[in-house]
């Protein structure tokens, strides 16, 4: 009798799992916007070389365009974006930067990683925050320190793609 009850409970709970998963999925509906404007990477008080800021910005424009999530991708300052009513803006603010060493990375594979911590957020025209998350970009083994910008842009683009 006891074993029958156990089997019944187990079967019911297994049936409930997909329902729970679909409920969770349903709880996060994707947002929609026809266009996005990529704002220039803000450094705040963090000392980060200009080439890193511009490389993140350029790679973000490139990757978000390639992702096809939005019909139009505008750069910061683009006057053409002014007329778009459902425009959203991607902001990236640097919260931490550690410049590593490519030689150390390749010799030790443990030390010398370059790391950039950012807060990425997407806001609507009315200022509503549609997405806000902290992301870390890293270059661990091979490649120039500037390679961290590619990793970061890849992660941010993935996150934006999951939201829109």
């Amino acid at each position, binding site marked *: 009798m006891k074993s029958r009850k156990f089997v019944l409970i187990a079967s019911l709970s297994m049936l409930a799992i997909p329902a729970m998963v679909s409920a969770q999925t349903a709880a996060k509906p994707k947002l929609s916007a026809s266009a996005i404007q990529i704002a*220039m990477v803000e450094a705040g008080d963090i000392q980060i*070389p*200009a*080439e890193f*800021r*511009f*490389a993140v*910005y*350029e*790679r973000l424009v*490139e990757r978000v365009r390639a992702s096809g999530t939005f019909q139009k991708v*505008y*750069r*910061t*300052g*683009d*006057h*053409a974006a002014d007329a778009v009513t459902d425009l959203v803006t991607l902001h990236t603010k640097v919260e931490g930067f550690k*410049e*590593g*060493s*490519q*030689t*150390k990375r*390749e*010799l030790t594979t443990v030390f*010398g990683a370059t790391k950039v911590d950012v807060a990425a957020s997407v806001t609507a025209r009315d200022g509503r925050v549609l997405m806000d998350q902290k992301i870390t970009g890293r270059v661990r083994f091979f490649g*120039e*320190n*500037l390679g961290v910008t590619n990793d970061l842009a890849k992660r941010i683009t993935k996150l934006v793609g999951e939201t829109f």
Partner: protein
Amino acid sequence: MKLTTTLIVALGAASLAPAQTATSSSPGTTTAANPNVRHVIGLDTIQRNATGKLMVQDGALQFTTGKAENKIAISAIDDIFIGTETTQSGGKTGTAVKTAAIAAPYGSGKALTIMMRTKVDILTVAFHDPDGAVHGAIFALPIGQAEQMRSQLMQAGAHASLSEEKASDGSKP
């Protein structure tokens, strides 16, 4: 005695002459091309990591590869930054050699990592297009040449904030 003095003076003048010419002409010329410049990112019509010539000509910063060309109007330049980066020498061949060296026994291939290091200047040019959209073109130049290029651009009328003269003083090797 007189002959010796004349010879010393003549030799001294001869050795000084080329150095002075090089110093005075380098920042002044607006057409001097920087060969072996690598385009890191930022120019729409040029592939990433393409190597070419960077020069200031006809009121524009011009980057030319064998296949393509891109011009940035001097008047569109908003700022210029200089930094440094340590990278791998040898271009694509260098990458292939280093990848092959990974398979070398007892990690001996890692010695190549040290030998194949080269320091480059990073020149970042912030500019805007006719719609006002901000762009950033990043170039890797042979060490010591970014400052020269920056001077040429500024002499040609490009805007550059002096407060941020050095974007990064020296990346770790």
